[in-house]
């Protein structure tokens, strides 16, 4: 394997090198689709580390026992001693934990990985065992952003994030093919040389790391840039400083310079940004003017803690960092995969039930109303056999000759051994509010929807439901709240509800359908779309505006008009959504009952329920949804 043979993936390679220099950066997470060469990269990274460094693959279907470790029963029975087996997390200690599909990991597993990362050790306190194993590992994770985001708590503990792994351009692709077909003979020699050299560089950088300096101004610049980008928490600053230091070490510098800061901004700060450094609509604004107008949110935030006067150099450093972030952003800013806050979240960890869903683990319990987990029951009984034999013997002596089949049996199982199956309940429903944010009643509608979202989330806890909100206006539909169970999150994200413009109903339905399919992949089988509209979709999927009355007159009404096309499009799409098994409730918010007609028709197309609620209160909306589900 040769590092330089991996074409493209430059940011990913850079991140991995920094991690190799300073493992306290926690890890590297990269968004990488199938075929982007991520497994090749993982192998190459393993080869860069000193010989004997553990490299542990975490399979997606791992059980909790194997992850954190537990009693090795075979050994225990054979030797008569308590033998604790290390889990995968402990096996990765001092090395790499590699996860392909970080966002597909079970919630309970993610929670354990997070816990181990925050402690630097694994603690086992289960099934009569108490043990702790060191677990300082670097996490190398990949995920496909089409399958949703990585849990925020986990991302927070991982220093380096590469949100766009692309080797898309044809030049690079051609190069991949050329190198893959290159003669293996001359490759091998060159490969070893290059890897040896890189290993040497990393080793040297590690030695130098403690003596490399970073100035206060540079640290201030990092903090200021993190604030401007709306990065949550203070851990990112630490990671950014460490990344800059590692970059300087790798470049053979003894002090951090601009280039190091830029690398840190790209790999640490940018992926954690929750807002853009400057207003999008004024990209040509000259920098000096920018500084005089701090953004309103920022000013608000700083109110409680007055800013001390900043030294001269610091704004320039912040600017440098922010421009590095901007340079790393792709053109299509709206579809950023890094906004983890809008991604999968709010899952309440381990929620288990008795009969439905995916089998997760066996727990102690009564057999009544449960399914017996035979093997775990036998395993639970096993350690006690010797004890029980002695007890049974004593009992038999006492009772004399009285025959007791239970006391005579070879293997004794007691009520306390009974283990029953627990299943992960993901059978809740996803409710997607599709809300028309155009027209004069938009504000009202949005407020109603927000109320209903809050109301539904109050119960979501019980029903394992999730709630999402899509609004549509102008040319496009927009996800305002990705599927969530968190009231807090919903409150914050729905704080700003943009309204006004045209009505791209079809785009919004499409977005809702996408969500339904995505959550189905994650184990939530049912989705209900709650469409709050007056039913008039006047902008098509392609974004072209439907003709108003005047234009239709001009067209003579002969040919299918743009409006007609949009309607057909809506009808077809609705039929597809209905056929896919997605439920629907159409809430008609039209105040003037005489002009009704579009919304009932939409409900019919969607094979859903129609409710007329022009001035709905949150409870009424929830009641209407309950009636339909």
């Amino acid at each position, binding site marked *: 394997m040769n590092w330089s043979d991996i074409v493209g993936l430059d940011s990913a390679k850079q991140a991995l090198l920094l991690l190799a220099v300073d*493992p*306290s950066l926690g890890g590297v997470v990269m968004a990488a689709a199938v075929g982007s060469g991520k497994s090749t990269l993982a192998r190459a990274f393993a080869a860069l580390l*000193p010989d*004997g*460094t553990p490299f542990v693959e975490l399979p997606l279907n791992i059980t909790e026992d194997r992850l*954190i470790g537990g009693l090795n029963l075979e050994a*225990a029975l054979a030797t*008569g*001693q308590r033998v604790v087996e290390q889990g995968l997390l402990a096996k990765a*200690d*001092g090395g790499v934990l590699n996860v392909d599909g970080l966002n597909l990991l079970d919630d309970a597993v993610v*929670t*354990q990985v997070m816990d181990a990362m*925050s*402690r*630097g050790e694994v603690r*086992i*306190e*289960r099934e*009569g*065992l108490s043990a702790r194993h*060191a677990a*300082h590992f670097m996490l190398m994770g990949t995920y496909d952003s089409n399958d949703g985001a990585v849990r*925020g*708590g986990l991302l*927070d503990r991982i220093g380096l994030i590469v949100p766009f792994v692309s080797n898309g351009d044809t030049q690079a692709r051609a190069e991949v093919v050329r190198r893959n077909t290159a003669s293996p003979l001359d490759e091998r020699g060159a490969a070893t040389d290059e890897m040896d050299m890189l290993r040497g560089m990393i080793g040297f950088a590690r030695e130098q790391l403690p003596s490399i300096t970073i100035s*206060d101004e540079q*640290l201030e610049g990092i903090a*200021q840039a993190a*604030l401007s980008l709306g*990065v*949550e*928490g*203070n*851990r*990112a600053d*630490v990671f950014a400083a460490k990344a800059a230091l590692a970059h300087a070490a790798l470049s053979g510098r003894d002090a951090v310079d601009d280039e190091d800061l830029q690398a840190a901004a790209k790999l640490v700060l940018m992926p954690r940004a929750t807002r853009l450094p400057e207003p999008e609509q004024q990209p040509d604004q000259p920098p000096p003017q920018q500084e005089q107008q701090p953004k309103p949110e920022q000013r608000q935030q*700083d109110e*409680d*803690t007055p*800013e*001390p006067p900043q030294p001269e150099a610091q704004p320039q450093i912040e600017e440098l960092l922010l421009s590095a972030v901007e340079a790393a952003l792709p053109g299509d800013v709206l579809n950023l995969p890094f906004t983890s*806050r809008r991604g999968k*979240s*709010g899952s309440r*960890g*381990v929620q*288990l039930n008795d009969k439905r869903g995916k089998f997760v683990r066996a727990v102690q319990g009564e057999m009544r109303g449960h399914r017996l987990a035979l093997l775990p029951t036998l395993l639970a009984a096993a*350690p*006690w056999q*010797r*004890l029980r*034999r002695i*007890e049974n013997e004593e009992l038999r002596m006492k009772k004399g000759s009285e025959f007791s089949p239970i006391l005579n049996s070879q293997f004794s199982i007691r009520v306390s051994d009974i283990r029953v199956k627990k299943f992960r309940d993901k059978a809740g429903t996803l409710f997607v509010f599709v809300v028309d944010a155009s027209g004069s009643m938009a504000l009202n509608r949005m407020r109603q929807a927000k*109320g209903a979202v*809050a109301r539904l*989330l109050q119960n979501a806890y019980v029903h394992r439901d999730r709630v999402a909100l899509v609004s549509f206006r102008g040319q496009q539909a927009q996800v305002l709240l990705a599927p969530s*169970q968190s009231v*807090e*999150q919903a409150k914050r994200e729905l704080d700003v509800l943009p309204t006004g413009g045209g009505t791209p109903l079809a785009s919004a339905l499409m977005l809702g359908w996408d969500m339904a399919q995505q959550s189905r992949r994650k184990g939530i089988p049912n989705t209900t779309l709650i469409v709050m509209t007056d039913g008039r979709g006047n902008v098509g999927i392609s974004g072209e505006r439907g003709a108003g009355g005047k234009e239709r007159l001009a067209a003579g009404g002969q040919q299918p008009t743009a409006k007609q096309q949009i309607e057909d499009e809506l009808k077809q799409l609705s039929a597809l959504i209905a056929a896919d098994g997605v439920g629907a409730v159409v809430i008609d918010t039209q105040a003037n009952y005489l002009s009704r007609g579009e919304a009932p028709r939409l409900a019919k197309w969607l094979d859903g329920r129609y409710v007329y609620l022009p001035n709905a209160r949150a409870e009424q909306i929830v009641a209407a949804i309950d009636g339909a589900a």
Partner: protein
Amino acid sequence: MATHSTPHAELNALNALNTSFPFTAIVGQEEMKLCLLLNVIDPRIGGVMVMGHRGTGKSTTVRALADVLPAIKRIEGDVYNRETRDGRTQDLSLLNSHESKVKSQKVQLEKIPVPVVDLPLGATEDRVCGTIDIEAALTRGEKRFAPGLLAQANRGFLYIDEVNLLDDHLVDVLLDVAASGWNVVEREGISIKHPARFVLVGSGNPEEGELRPQLLDRFGLHARITTITNVQERVEIVKRRRAFDENPAAFMQMWEPQQQQLRKRIVHAQKILHEVVMPDDVLLRAAELCMKLGIDGHRGELTVTRAACAYAAFQSKAAHGPIDVKYDDVKVMATAALRHRLRRDPLEIVDSDERVARAL
């Protein structure tokens, strides 16, 4: 990156884990720190729940608390950390050998640091509450009770990080024990009851998962924590973290004087706590405040007064009492003691902190 393959290296790695960041070196987050310290001074305050943003030092701070806690006396080697034989366990025949010492007349006391038990999320009930010693059963066919984490936490702190991700069932067990002060185990033919009084400390991020509403008001104080926005403070955080990561021992050494000072201050506050007096008019105003906020029951009043007393003791420089609690002390503690006891309305726009502030 060397592997810790030898047992010695493994031991060293574990020892290194035990050096936590010094409490006094933690920048900002004063509310959380104060709430924790007041629970040290008066454990009857009823614990702290810390909720807030990621990466703001919640777990670092709680884990750092252990190092500033004063020592307690216990019967030598007692796994339940008992000081006297009052907290007697039932069914003594099943207990470990040290128990015979407890039964005998010659009771030796020893000093130990206040225990802080850090509950891992995957913990099962048998290890939390205690169960039969699996090794004794395997090797000798003996039935012996192996005390769990609740026994270890007696007279100390029990910390649950990411409390909102813990199994509901386990949370219920913990809350029951925390409320009663006793742990009762019925298992494998044994029946044991032992004292388990501890201060419950939880922390979490509301976005990782919603807390059950009834869970929050079981905690005495509720601290909220947000991202620090002051640039100078943030720079300080980075510098201290780098220094600590590079050489934990040297960093601890550097902060030892401050740690020592805080330890002294805590011991002093504990000593004079019983001399703190809450005048009737202050008590009346505290009660009025709770009424104004529409708080049901008396737990709110009780917590706010206890917290105010502990705060007065913590602030006092006097060597002796009596110390009068002022309404200002109540004001300082009101938000943390009451914000989680207000009636919840999902559509309420006004923040609970704001509501407490207005009532004040």
